[in-house]
């Protein structure tokens, strides 16, 4: 009996391999292989909510190619091995687009599964160049902007708009994202030095360091407090570093990557001032675009809370550009969609423009809004687009 059973099971297994889920012709499927539990959930969920908002908008407007978009989900449980399984699981569900975790390390297993199946994958908000052609393959994209662009933007903006001359570079060596911000800063700095800026010192720390007192002592022993400190770090160490810098009486401008956007942590450093963050859109209700503020209201209506940081927005951008490419290609076939995506040059979206090329499925130049925190209150004070795109050498450093 058991033997027969086994034969039957094997036969079934063979059949199911031989006939993979046939693409259903009257619907389009978006598969989310993202974290619904564990560490990454807090980072994936907000961007995914934003993606769902765009999907609902498209469906309400009659769908894509006249078909409704359906959603399948699989939980990566914030685990890389589970990530690969989740990728396969949404592909089995017939996904035409595989959406993967925000972070390259956590998202790449599912993205690679999609690449193997020849399907388009999109990282929700990864900012490493590896989240795309370089790390996954020719069908992979990221919806956010590269980290080096953030460092370069802040350096050029501080020099040109705020008259900052003496820069100090403080790098948290924990993640590739942090290094990326400083890589962009390093690429921009020689250009600014030619115009009179100066790098007066640099130092490193580790995100989990209980204290950065030694690093602070080094800054304080400079003959003059630097005009600006480029702080390449992310949560949770960022809060600790900022708090300690200010507690030691260092009042220089602090320049950051987008990773520290949000007001949720500001209570830890009461009355923080002279603090600057680049963002793709403002969560503070003062975005120059009416549509962004409208989106924020929709987001609040759907989820019960305001966006907690700018990392909500790439989720919306992702569905937006992908749907446009599908519309233009007239099909969800991966190669056709990729070709249409690669034709996009300064494609307008709610949160700035997007450009994809056959070499780069990511943004090496972008308009950033600059948010200044003044006496504990963040608000948009300007915007900046770097004078030239960050070149490939600096991105691959």
């Amino acid at each position, binding site marked *: 009996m058991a033997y027969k059973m086994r034969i039957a099971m094997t036969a079934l297994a063979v059949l199911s391999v031989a006939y993979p889920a046939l693409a259903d012709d009257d619907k389009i499927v978006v598969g989310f292989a993202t974290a619904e539990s*564990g*560490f*990454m*959930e*807090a*980072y994936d969920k907000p961007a995914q909510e934003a993606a769902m908002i765009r999907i609902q908008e498209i469906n309400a407007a009659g769908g894509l190619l006249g078909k409704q978009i359906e959603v399948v989900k699989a939980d990566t449980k*914030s685990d890389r091995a589970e990530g690969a399984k989740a990728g396969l699981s949404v592909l089995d569900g017939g996904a035409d687009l595989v959406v993967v975790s925000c972070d390259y390390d956590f998202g790449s297993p599912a993205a690679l599964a999609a690449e193997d199946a020849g399907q388009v994958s999109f990282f929700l908000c990864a900012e490493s160049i590896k989240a795309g052609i370089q790390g996954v393959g020719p069908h992979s994209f990221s919806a956010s902007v590269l980290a080096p662009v953030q460092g370069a933007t802040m350096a050029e903006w501080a020099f040109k708009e705020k008259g900052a001359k003496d820069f100090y570079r403080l*790098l948290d*060596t924990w993640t590739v994202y942090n290094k990326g911000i400083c890589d962009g800063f390093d690429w921009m700095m020689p250009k600014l030095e030619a115009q009179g800026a100066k790098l007066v010192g*640099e*130092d*490193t*720390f*580790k995100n*989990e*360091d*209980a*204290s950065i*007192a*030694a*690093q602070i*002592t*080094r800054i*304080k*022993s400079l003959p003059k407090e630097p005009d600006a400190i480029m702080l390449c770090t992310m*949560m*949770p*160490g960022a*809060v*600790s570093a900022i*708090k*300690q810098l*200010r*507690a*030691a*009486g260092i009042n220089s401008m602090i320049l950051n990557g987008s990773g520290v956007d*949000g*007001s*949720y*942590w*500001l*209570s*830890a*450093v*009461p009355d923080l001032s002279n603090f600057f963050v680049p963002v793709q859109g403002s969560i503070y209700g003062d975005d120059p675009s009416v549509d962004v503020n409208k989106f924020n209201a929709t987001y609040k209506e759907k989820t019960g*809370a305001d966006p*907690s*940081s700018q990392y909500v927005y790439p989720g919306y951008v992702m569905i937006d550009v992908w749907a446009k490419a599908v519309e233009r290609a007239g099909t969800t076939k991966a190669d056709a969609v990729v070709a249409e995506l690669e034709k996009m040059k300064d494609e307008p979206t709610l949160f700035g423009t997007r450009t994809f090329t056959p070499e780069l499925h990511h943004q090496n130049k972008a308009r950033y809004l600059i948010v200044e925190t003044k006496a504990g209150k963040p608000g948009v004070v300007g915007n900046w687009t770097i004078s030239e795109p960050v070149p490939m050498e600096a991105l691959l450093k």
Partner: protein
Amino acid sequence: MLQILFDALSLGSLYALGALGIALIFGVMRLVNFAHGDVIAFCVFALLWPSTDAMAIVFAGQLPWYLLVPFVLLCGAGLSVLCEIVVFRRFRKANPATMMITSFALGFVIRYFLLMLYSSRPKSISLLPTLSQPVEIFGARLPLLQLITIIATMAILIGLTLFLRQTRFGLEMRAAAENFSMARMLGVRANRVIMGAFALSGALAGAIALIFGSQTGTADIQMGASIMLMAFIATVIGGLGSLGGAVLAGFLLGAASVVMQVMLPVDARPFRDAFVYGAVILVLLFRPQGLIAARGTKERV
């Protein structure tokens, strides 16, 4: 120079307090309590109302400092004693490796409990904000918190020494640390001593949580891990089970870390910890029994 001394002392204080918490329990139970770091994290989270929102809802953290400090210490002590009663008591006869694995498991339980209640997003909390001001002392400008950390650590160490030397309970604890079965035969009640050790160790975790929380302004479910690692290394260099050794090694580790950060050229600085651990290996090569070997752990022939 003076500034560097203060930096080293304040970082060393954190490590010393952590090492002491581990050494205390190791002394009476031969248990390396890897859940210690998660007790620290728990103490910080105890100040927040459970919620998975990005914005932290500060609850007990709003208490005035004279209530806040005892509250956190009690939290730590309470959780630690609870761990003893619920878990470690059942493993008292097990071999040290089993107990160590148990403590790992327990640490995970605490961490995932926090993950469930508060999510993995680090929460921000302004703890004792008046301490985040710079003060000037002997020409060195340092955050008030740094000074308080050093003073509080000294006070705790002196208090603990007095407690261990002058009180009956302290005597029992030292006796138990030296030779547990002998102490029991002479009328030391094992449960009381072990629970006392856990309570003290937990309260020390609470003290670290307070300092760490006010220094970083962050509550993160993984925040205990790095301190726990350093503290564990300190207890090993200090001589497992030796309280004095643990404290000394804690301060040495803090000093080594700060000095490396100051001395290393900028390209080598990302590898600071590798140099620190290298120094640790050197120390252990020359003193495998630790700087101050505990009498109870020597092999008897």
